[in-house]
């Protein structure tokens, strides 16, 4: 399933007893771009990414993927889209009673996306690329925070989805890991994966590694923000 378009039509979403995250929003998200989602602290960037991942259901409106309202779909109907959307949490999210290796293997084996041998090769390769292979057989509680965060980031990458949603990806990572991560993303984008990337971040230095577009979430509305053409872009 190829994802061509992502669109909000009159979408409203509010957490109980709080200000609306989005209110009656119509927005056509640019595709084949790296989108930097910016907002004030607590304005709802994570919630917006979760709506885009199908993890939060808006109270009203339509979320159209390829012209189909996915909010009307059951878990099974949404699954083909879901497998093309990778989501990484800002914190938490690793399955605590499984090793890091098993955490990365789980989506591949569960959906039989690739053969077990191919899955193992892919996961081992990824762990080696990021230099955390020695922690592969450890459980999340037994590894440093940096490794945990990195594993969180790597889990959606193993599925090689078309849409990648990254919530504060650079927090807690070392500079070397960031370079490797950006390099990995750029390499696979050339090969046709991670076509549409959404990143919420306050880290301008990290974002400058990408050629991004900015969308701003403010007061329940989404806006495009002009990007300084002089912005620094580092190609690794």
């Amino acid at each position, binding site marked *: 399933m190829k994802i061509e378009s992502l669109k909000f039509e009159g979408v409203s979403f509010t957490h109980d007893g709080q200000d609306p995250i989005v209110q009656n929003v119509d927005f056509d998200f640019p595709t084949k771009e790296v989108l930097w989602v910016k907002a004030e602290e607590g304005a709802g960037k994570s919630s917006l990414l979760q709506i885009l*991942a199908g993890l939060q259901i808006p109270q009203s409106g339509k979320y159209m993927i390829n012209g189909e309202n996915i909010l009307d779909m059951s*878990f099974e109907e949404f699954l083909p889209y879901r497998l093309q*959307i990778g989501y990484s949490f800002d914190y*938490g*999210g690793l399955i605590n009673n499984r090793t890091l290796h098993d955490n990365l293997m*789980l989506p591949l084996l569960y959906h039989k996306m690739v053969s077990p041998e191919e899955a193992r090769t892919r996961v081992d390769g990824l762990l080696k690329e990021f230099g955390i292979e020695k922690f592969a057989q450890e459980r999340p509680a037994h590894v440093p925070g940096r490794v945990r965060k990195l594993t969180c980031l790597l889990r959606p990458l193993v599925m090689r989805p078309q849409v990648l949603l990254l919530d504060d990806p650079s927090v807690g990572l070392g500079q070397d890991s960031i370079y490797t991560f950006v390099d990995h993303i750029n390499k696979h984008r050339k090969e046709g994966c991670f076509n549409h990337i959404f990143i919420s971040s306050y880290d301008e230095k990290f974002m400058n590694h990408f050629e991004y577009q900015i969308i701003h979430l403010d007061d329940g509305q989404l806006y495009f923000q002009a990007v300084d053409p002089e912005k620094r872009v580092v190609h690794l």
Partner: protein
Amino acid sequence: MTSLLARVDSLGRFFTKNMEYTFRVLLMVYVSIRAAIFDKAQGFRQIFGVISAQIYFTGWQALPLITVLALGVGGLLVLQCMANLSLLGGTQMIGSFLVVMICREAGPLLVALVVIARSGTAVASEVGNMRANREIEALESMGINPMSFIVFPRVLGGIFSVVALAFYFNVIALIGGFLITRFMQDMPLAFYTDSIVRAFAKEDLLIFLLKNGFSGMIIFVVSCYQGLSVKRSPHEVPQQTTLAVVNSIIFVVIFNLMVSALFYLNELRNLGVIS
């Protein structure tokens, strides 16, 4: 008058609240079974792994505790009844007494209580922590339905474990009873086993499967439901775990009582005592 109305109102609210809770729990059973059957994308091998882990923790690791409990209960019940049966000259009734007390009543209830204490709490706190740690959301983000990956295998593994543990409990309790009779009255094994075999009726198998199978389902469905009721914060986990224990005990006791009541009413009807 106002006080009476207030009481009726409070009773109505209590009844409605409990009916709603029961309905929600039953809905979760339906959704988890449906998800397990219809989710074509799921990896049965992964789900089987969760089922076998559940059986290992709930069934296998509980064996030492169940053994001690069964030997003790079997021995104690025989000790209590032998004195009375010997006085009345009804020693041959030992089998009927043990089948009624151990296999029909004490066994299912005690095994259920042990499983609630050991595994119900573990499942409720595990699932609750998974919710607080956003593991449930993570599963969803990977396209893994938590109902078929978390709830269904735990319930299935739990039912199997409770039935197996109850069978084991009955066997060990009857052995415990025999050891006491050997010690007290030097009762021959043939007499003891013959008395028990004669006391068994085909209804006992039905009662055994009904009580233990449904107790297993109740414990693990309620525990999963309470675990999933955790919203975001880890401080809710112990509260939900306590609720899981309380609700499981209430549901299991009520269910056992209903099965026993229906069974004995049916017996009375067969005897012509009631029409």
